[in-house]
């Protein structure tokens, strides 16, 4: 860079900051022309105590029309329940723990009637639950679905109905058997 000796900024040159009539540094601002005098009068008047807020009169007062019932004004005693709002009950929440692996299945017949599962009930089946002996399960045997109680007989699984009229099903090794899911609940409309 060229070391220029002429022109430009020189230390100590010019009017000192705060040497004006306000006794401090100033700033240029834009104000409406119509109100220059007013603002001048305001800032040049002697500061009285600590009154920071000064209302300037509007040069041309305007009327604003307010409708009488424009807004609801909350009046009266506030609801004593306001602090106790909770969300309302949701049956999904009650019946389903694992949303992703839960399915609904419709029941036909009375083979599970003693387990309170009736014809036309909708049962909730969770595939993520590990089936234990004694659970009501949805299983497929050779391509057919059935809902029964899981039991064991000489290390082979057995499916028990909940109705005396029906026989237990013993699963043979030759059968294609798969536990589809565990029945976790039932719903019925009257």
């Amino acid at each position: 860079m060229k070391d220029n000796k002429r022109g430009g900024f020189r230390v100590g040159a010019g009017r000192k900051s705060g040497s004006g009539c306000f006794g401090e540094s100033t700033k240029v601002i834009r104000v409406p022309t119509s109100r220059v005098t007013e603002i001048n009068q305001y800032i040049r008047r002697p500061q009285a105590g600590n009154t920071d807020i000064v209302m300037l009169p509007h040069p041309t007062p305007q009327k604003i029309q307010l409708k009488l019932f424009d807004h609801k004004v909350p009046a009266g005693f506030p609801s004593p329940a306001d602090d106790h709002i909770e969300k309302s009950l949701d049956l999904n929440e009650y019946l389903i723990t694992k949303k992703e692996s839960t399915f609904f299945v419709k029941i036909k017949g009375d083979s599970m009637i003693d387990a309170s599962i009736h014809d036309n009930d909708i049962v909730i089946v969770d595939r993520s639950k590990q089936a234990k002996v004694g659970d009501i399960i949805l299983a497929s045997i050779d391509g057919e679905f059935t809902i029964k109680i899981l039991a064991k007989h000489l290390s082979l699984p057995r499916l028990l109905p909940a109705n005396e009229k029906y026989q237990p099903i013993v699963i043979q090794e030759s059968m294609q058997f798969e536990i589809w899911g565990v029945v976790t609940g039932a719903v019925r409309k009257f």
Partner: protein
Amino acid sequence: MLALVDVNNFYVSCERLFNPKLINKAVVILSNNDGCIISRSDEAKLIGIKMGQPLFKVKELIRQHNVQVLSSNYPLYADLSSRVMRLISGFTNHQEVYSIDECFISLDEHKDPRNIAMVVKEKLWADLRMPVCVGIGPTKVLAKFGNHCAKKQKKWDGVFATYLLSEACLNEMMDVFSVGEVWGVGDKLKQKLELINIKTVLDLKGSDVISIKNTLNVNVGRIVHELNGIHCFPLEQVAPKKKQIITSRSFGKTVTDYPQLVEAVTTFVVRATLKLRSQDTLCSKVSVFISSSPFIRDSNYYHNLTTVGLANPTSNTGLILKGSLEGLRSIYKNNISYVKCGVILSGLINSENSQDNLWPVDDKRKGDLVFVMDKINNRFNGSTLRLGTQPLYPTWGARQLKKSPSYTTSWKELLVVS
């Protein structure tokens, strides 16, 4: 590390969940109008049925091997897809749902990515009976390649991690697969690459990025980088807005009448504009196309497309329909047996960036009406409020002869068990 989780034969796997009779059998799923094969079980692949083949070309194979043929059941697939994606999302902080049956996830927060991929795989099988393959790699292209390896070679047990192999071993694997298997390399690009002697995945990996960029395009250069483990494609967690919306269907039976085509166009416009509004965009052009069957040789094949510009970008069903019907009128010919028709919305812009016309022709209240209709249809049933020319049960509707019930989305179609 990134992983690509992909459900094997997704549509077939969905059907098998609710129909155990299909397990271990050759099964194929047909496209929207029962026209082509769009998903095949492994057994069907072995018989030699190809992806995308028209059904009539494999009739004989299907009869011979007693292949189970099903129409597609999109409500079921969509529901199971969202269950799959939600289950996977539990294992990661970053997920990009890439298609109905695959997603990229970041495994950076896990110390042993292969192990966690195994857990994901077992979870999806236990909870939803979905067989999946997982490819793990430092980049999307490598994760996708890993997924391909996991699918093609049974020895990996469904999970292939590129980082567990030495460079030499990985190169050996890449030499086996054709360059067409690389993510982002389509048929056309494959041909171009083969012309410059890039035939295998390894050839592409070893090619010179700068000359590839110059002779082809920058995107292919990025693919080469990604094959070498250099990150170019980030996970896109918010799906980008569509630049074009196409709604079209083949008819269940041929259509010659003009009023029926009007019904079809109305139905497609309603569907397309719903998508348009759901991504908060406006369209400035609408195209309509109609075509007769290209397979019937003796008849004169007619197909035509016309594009109508809209005065103002809009998402208003009525205005877009008006343009579409103008277009339809201009290309409709008498005495032709039409088999397909469709609507394309293009010139899409964000609704907040739209410029208003100086003399608006659009009645703003009409625009509001559409949103009110959407709200009502959303709250009740998909088509509670319809336009006059939109039929509830179209006579030209798609053929779906062997569709399984909507087990998970309709109370009337639940699985019935005794």
